[in-house]
């Protein structure tokens, strides 16, 4: 079963549509990144998923339970919906977390120390949140989100306002959580960083889900062979090669590189270079948004 599932979810304010018919699913252990230009509907989608806003069409299911019909569904959910996360400034970080632990039904006192340590906040845990820096508040938000050991984590711009060390910490944490089986849905403008560990990227534009890109298995190879046109024609005939295209004087293909190399050498092509080429998500995103 998918940990998080959106079925044709939409939101209108009066006659103005903000989101239309967005359907997506995130499986346990999967990281799904939402990308899109400002105003594309990312934050609205996050608010709908977390039950803060109500859809005018469709539904959002967390482990099969509708978050808008059953508030109890949020027991599986951890979320940060604002950057920086909001807390009571007159309480310390630990007191804020204790209040969240109570509301989320977390009974183990040790869990507070655990999440504070994981987000490297132990040194400031007993200081009032009003004195926290932007980055510390953002990390405390993440600590509050993971406090009840959620099965689904929803984050709006989780690295916003963080220094490079904080960004690395958050990405590392999200990667670990995904490995532990948590489904992560996050919105971001930092595609290159997220592409390192995200499994899927959803591209939003004009309130619609324009495209979904599966990043795992998107390993492409760059090949330089002479003559390239002939090599391209040969690669296209190979069952082990899924797609091949010319990029300048080089060939870019997806599939089995060894099979491709063997076939080219057998046919007498001169192969000068063959190396992996990461899928250029940014270029793809820009093209997709431009055409939308």
């Amino acid at each position: 079963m998918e940990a998080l599932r959106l079925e044709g979810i939409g939101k209108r304010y009066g006659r103005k549509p903000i989101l239309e018919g967005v359907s997506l699913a995130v499986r346990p252990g999967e990281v799904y990144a939402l990308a899109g230009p400002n105003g594309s509907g990312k934050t609205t989608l996050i608010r709908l998923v977390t039950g803060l806003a109500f859809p005018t069409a469709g539904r959002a299911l967390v482990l099969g339970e509708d978050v808008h019909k059953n508030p109890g569904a949020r027991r599986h959910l951890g979320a940060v919906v604002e950057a920086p996360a909001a807390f009571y400034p007159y309480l310390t970080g630990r007191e804020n977390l204790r209040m969240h632990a109570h509301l989320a039904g977390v009974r183990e006192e040790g869990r507070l120390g655990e999440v504070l340590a994981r987000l490297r906040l132990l040194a400031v845990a007993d200081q009032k949140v009003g004195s926290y820096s932007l980055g510390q508040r953002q990390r405390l938000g993440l600590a509050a989100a993971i406090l009840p050991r959620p099965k689904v984590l929803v984050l709006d711009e989780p690295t916003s306002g963080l220094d490079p060390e904080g960004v690395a910490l958050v990405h590392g944490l999200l990667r670990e959580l995904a490995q532990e089986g948590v489904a992560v849905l996050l919105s971001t403008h930092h595609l290159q960083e997220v592409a390192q560990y995200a499994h899927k990227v959803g591209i939003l534009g004009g309130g619609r889900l324009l495209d979904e890109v599966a990043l795992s298995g998107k390993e492409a190879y760059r090949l330089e062979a002479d003559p390239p046109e002939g090599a391209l024609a040969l690669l296209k005939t190979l069952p082990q090669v899924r797609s091949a295209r010319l990029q300048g004087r080089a060939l870019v293909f997806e599939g089995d590189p060894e099979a491709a190399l063997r076939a080219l050498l057998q046919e007498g092509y001169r192969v000068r270079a063959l190396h992996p080429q990461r899928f250029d998500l940014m270029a793809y995103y820009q093209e997709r948004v431009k055409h939308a």
Partner: protein
Amino acid sequence: MLRLFAFEVYKLFRLRSVQLGLLAAFLLPFLWALAPGLKEVYGLVLASGWQVVALSLLAGMEFLFPFLVVMAASEALGSEVAQGTLKSLLLRPLPRSLLLLAKLLALFLYPFVLLAVSFLGGLLAGLPHGLGPFYGGTGVGAGGFAGVGLLLPPQALAELLRAHLLAGAVLLPLVALALLYATVFLSTTASALAAVATLLLMRLLVAFPALTPFLLTTYLDLHLRPEAAGLGLPLLFIYTLGFAFLAALVFERKDL
């Protein structure tokens, strides 16, 4: 629920409007006790410290106390919206109505605390005038400030306690009304203004005599007319419940 309620009470008394309100309620009696124009305005020469307590209640209930409870109720939700903390509360697996109920119960406490502080301030400010038996009235019992003869301290205390409790009951629907507007507008200022405007509008409806007995504003001086409590108290209770129910209904489906 108890812990949630306790937390809401804690947050409520951290609000600036609440702290300022309590300070004003405490200091107002001292101001009244020293006011040089009491005789000209009220025809009153203070004969007892008990009259200072009543004077503070009467003056406060004119506008200040209703305004303070409306502000507190508006700010209780509005400040959480402005700070962003309401969202983080609503992300937790609790029904929205439960969160609102905890807030409402905490807010219901405030008018009584406000009046208790005013009572205490009145007693302290009235000490120089003495709190023993006196010829005259408390201003909230028979005969007004002139009274009907000798008034003993227990009688004065009972009259003032009854008046303060009735005043507290009068303020409860105002709390619920302001919270209703806060759920609609999610803004402190808009909610407080809407609540005040509603009360002013209701006062204008006095031109419709058939409606008058059922208007909330008809009973805003119930502390001075305990004989009207028979109809007034149930009506205030119905208004409170009605506004609270509507607030819960609005909040349940409100986008944040």
